[in-house]
């Protein structure tokens, strides 16, 4: 069963040891190049904590289970602070093609809750396969756009070919 970022947002995060709710899932952080969920942000604002994906014992339909609260850590470094603040949140982000054209807004992200693998990205509800994901950051999500038609005898064609 696939899971979606928008539906998972706000889901309770529970300690398996104490059965206590430790907070609510605020953001899901991914590595765009590996097309993989890497961590979860629990709670918002100054109380936001992170947990690495491999420390999550079960991403269920009603709760996200983790070992206990010691698995959560405070954000370290600029990147994790940006993640904790939700600056790199994908849903709601502008999407650009690698040709530099605006494709719309990310409306949801579909992933496998067992492995954390990203399956697809919905841009204005159009499905983009995970394979076309090239990058994601605080400004935009970048996907491989439709190839632009090159001109015959393009003066810059040799340069373009060199880069590819």
């Amino acid at each position, binding site marked *: 069963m696939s899971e979606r970022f928008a539906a998972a947002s706000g889901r309770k995060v529970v300690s398996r040891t104490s059965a206590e709710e430790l907070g609510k899932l605020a953001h899901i952080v991914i590595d765009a190049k590996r097309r993989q969920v890497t961590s979860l942000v629990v709670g918002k604002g100054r109380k936001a904590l992170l947990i690495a994906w491999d420390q999550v014992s079960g991403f269920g339909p009603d709760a996200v289970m983790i070992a206990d609260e010691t698995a959560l850590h405070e954000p370290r470094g600029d990147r994790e602070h940006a993640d904790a603040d939700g600056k790199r949140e994908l849903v709601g982000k502008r999407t650009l093609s*690698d*040709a*530099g054209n605006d494709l719309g807004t990310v409306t949801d992200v579909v992933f496998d809750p067992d492995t954390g693998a990203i399956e697809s990205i919905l841009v204005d509800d159009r499905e983009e396969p995970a394979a076309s994901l090239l*990058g994601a950051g605080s400004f935009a999500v970048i996907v491989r*756009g439709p190839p632009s038609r090159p001109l015959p005898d*393009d003066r810059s064609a040799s340069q373009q070919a060199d880069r590819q």
Partner: protein
Amino acid sequence: MNLLLGSAIRGLPVVTIGDGEDVAEVRDVIYSPEAGRVVGLTLNKRGFLAGRRREVLSAETIHAIGRDAVMLDDESSLILPESSPADLGTPPSGRDVTGNDVLTEAGASLGKVRDIVVLVGSNGQVVGYEIDTPSGATGYIPLPNELPVSGNALVVPDATKAFIEDDLAGLGTAVEKFRSEPGIR
């Protein structure tokens, strides 16, 4: 063929593909009429720290100039002017072609350059000019792929006259037809 005006590139965010960050924004477009293409971009800072950035972007390291952003593979493409190609780091004076006459090889003026027309998704390929025609109208002319021997895109083949379009959409088709004319490359 999707086209955009050089002036529309100014102010676009410069975005890294892998990181999705806006590392700068376009201050100005450096066009070389001798090369017949954009050779690079000068930059402004993004956000609240607005103002000039000293680094420039050489066209060779630009992944694509799009309608909404200029895309880079990574931030290492931003280089200091002194370490950039000469025509970008120290552009010769008179590099701004705005207001210059476009002359046919036979010596007729087609009008004065108002802007350059760039191929969307390329790294600065210029396919035509927006001109003010002698009658006062706006016109769009295609450029050949290979420049005439004179080596300046302000001197165009005589056949160009038959391909003056009155809008940017028409120019896209005109460029392809023009470049398939006998004697035009």
